[in-house]
């Protein structure tokens, strides 16, 4: 077992080094650039944490659906719907009230965007992967239309909404540029802790995981698998919407066409890497954040950013090999 893991890791590193050499880059310099670009300075760390925030919250959205046995690929769509709805509210209601309402409305929008997929899965057994992918596309083009038309900032050339007032944005816990940390990250950590405790300590959390692990046995245990499936999809969508709302209120300040560079998809990797434990989403999203930020630094050096995606792919594979091993009968 351990040898297989070592072989995989060595193989992955060798392939990466080979790829870099072919691209006429020194692997050692590349790794240095990556680490320096993501963790080498206060500004780099601040940037990494900023990248980590949406990955963490969206990762938790994917994670909770996975625990219920659902593969919610629609977090991307739920995230942008949450972002657009939050922007709409935050532009109209000022100050802390607008911020809180914005977050809530963002969650509601995300949940509503997951609702059709949840209903179809629970009551018609239509596969959630198909339905959520389709809803992603609808969300993408719908929001693009909104920021080109009714929600567009008329004073600007960009296909974007106006910017949310600073007083309505989420506050910085530490703000001495270039070193910055937004309370959004803390919110993400709180959600992770809340989910972990909920899954471990509540009967509802137990039932959700039973449905995910063995739906037939769950039914025999008196659990309404349909209701749990629908609820899990709604909660996942709400957290996905929250990720979008937080991105607007903490960092972006507005919604624009091409708002998400694929946070919802990277979140799938985060959740798969994290496995069965909500706390593990924290380091998993941080790792994705480091590679994302460091990847940008690599790009400046002329190494394709895609190389970090390759690293992530290998990591997920290795995690899968470690996790899904056979159980031996002991008695």
């Amino acid at each position: 077992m351990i040898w297989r893991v070592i072989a995989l890791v060595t193989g992955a590193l060798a392939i990466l080094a080979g790829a870099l050499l072919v691209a006429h880059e020194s692997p050692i310099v590349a790794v240095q650039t990556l680490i320096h670009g993501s963790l080498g300075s206060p500004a780099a760390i601040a940037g990494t944490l900023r990248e980590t925030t949406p990955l963490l919250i969206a990762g938790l959205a994917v994670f909770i659906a996975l625990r219920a046995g659902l593969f919610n690929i629609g977090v991307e769509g739920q995230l942008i719907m949450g972002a657009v709805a939050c922007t709409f509210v935050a532009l109209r209601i000022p100050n802390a009230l607008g911020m809180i309402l914005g977050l809530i409305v963002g969650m509601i929008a995300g949940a509503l965007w997951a609702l059709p997929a949840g209903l179809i899965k629970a009551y018609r057994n239509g596969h959630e992967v198909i339905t959520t992918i389709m809803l992603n596309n609808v969300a993408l083009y719908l929001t693009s239309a909104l920021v080109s038309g009714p929600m567009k900032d008329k004073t600007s050339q960009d296909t974007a909404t106006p910017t949310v007032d600073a007083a309505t944005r989420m506050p910085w816990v530490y703000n001495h540029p270039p070193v910055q940390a937004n309370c959004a990250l803390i919110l993400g950590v709180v959600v992770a802790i809340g989910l972990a405790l909920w899954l471990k300590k509540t009967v509802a959390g137990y039932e959700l995981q039973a449905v995910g692990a063995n739906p037939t046995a769950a039914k025999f245990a008196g659990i309404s698998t349909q209701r749990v499936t629908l609820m899990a999809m709604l909660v996942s969508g709400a957290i996905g919407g929250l990720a979008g709302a937080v991105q607007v209120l903490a960092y972006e300040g507005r919604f624009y066409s091409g708002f998400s560079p694929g946070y919802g998809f990277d979140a799938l990797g985060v959740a798969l890497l994290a496995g069965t434990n909500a706390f593990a989403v924290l380091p998993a999203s941080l790792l994705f954040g480091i590679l994302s930020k460091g990847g940008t630094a690599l790009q400046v050096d002329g190494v394709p950013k895609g190389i970090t995606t390759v690293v992530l792919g290998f990591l997920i594979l290795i995690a899968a090999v470690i996790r899904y091993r056979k159980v031996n009968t002991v008695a």
Partner: protein
Amino acid sequence: MKGITKCFGAVTALDSVDLDVAAGGIHAVVGENGAGKTTLMRVLYGALHADEGSLELDGKPVRFGSSREAIQAGVGMVSQHYGIIPALTCLQNLILGAEGGTILNIKAAAQRAEALAKRMGFQFDWNSDASTLSPAGAQKLEILKLLWREARIMILDEPTAMLSPADASALFESLDRLAADGATIILVTHRLPEVLEHCNRVTILRGGKRIDEKAVADTTGSELAQLIVGGALDKPTTHRQISDGKTALQITDLSVKGSRGDLALKGIGVSVRSGEILGIAGVDGSGQRELFHAIAGLVKPTEGNITLDGVDFAGLSAADRIEQGVRVIAEDRHEEGVVEEWSLDENAALGLQRLSPFAKGGTVDSTARHAMAQKIAERFSTKHGGLNLPMASLSGGNQQRFVAARALCLAPKLLLAFQPARGLDLKGTQQVYDGIRAACAEGAAALVVSFDLDELLEQCDRLVAMNGGKLLEPLDGQSKDRDAIGRLMVGAH
């Protein structure tokens, strides 16, 4: 096989076991759960590697690195858990992995399949999905799979555990025929009558050691039973006086649609008194499953009433019924009874998760759950390596002990037991039924389905039979009459 030793961690599953099987004939391997029968067979079949010991086939030493090599050498095994893929047709399942070439010749395959089936006296609709097979059908298909691969040595692990008496005797007829044709069959079983009637030799295992090997002609059932448990068996305490308890479960005119849209239950009526164990005899697929599902609230009946202690079940969810005291010992413990990758601890609460002491308000009481898991494991002496290990680490029999004990742990009012002793040895079977009787002595009522009529006659207070979706009650005074029940099982009066 000589001096086979196999350890799992600290547990020695096999301790220097010898097994000599002569060519041609049926050789039985018997022993309690955890005696090492299945482990020994898996070593022989190449699915496990022995830590020590050697294997000889036709006088030549062999080593099987995998079950593929074993198959090539002519050794095949049908395990307790069938390897049938429901979504494929029967024919596709039959030839899977042994298609005999890169290009499929379906026509030739179908012809050869039909010839094999005919030789065994089996009937198959080769083009229908394997999911439509009854357990008996699946078992037969597994045996054909071995014949398809031209196995000379066939290992059958508890082949009759899921079969009705009629199917079981048909199976043994075919096995006898195969043995007469020169095949060597190794039969792992708990059922001593099978050994005595059909086998030539028998090897007894206990606690991972070979206790004895005997010619069946030279031994008796009671001698074997003693060798298996290593001491005298307690006589079961079956004939007891049940007080004239009040009616607990009352079912009237119950009809349920089956999976194919036809009626699987056709206007059933029956009542069970508190304290009573009602046995339901019948061949597999007579409607027992649908009856249990309707009572547990897993399917909605099209017609009819179910009441328990006067409470009408119409409109009560499965969870409500569990709260009313309904407990199920499910037919298929893997699929319906446990979450295999969860720990024993977590599985202890499954189905009882909303009840005290497992839940406190809406929260999980993990201290209480751990204590209950311990009790559940101890009740029927489930052998395990720790309550925090996954359920999948337990053998089938030990899982069954755990599942049965769990159903009994919180004062059930109505017990629905589908083959509660499935895969259990004599002592385990007795323990589980004693447990059911103890629950009934406290006022519960029990419905027991088994395809083993003798087990029902021995363990239940009263028997009824199911056939073709109807429930038939014997005449007064015949409720434990083997012949009368047997006639009802096939639909004759």
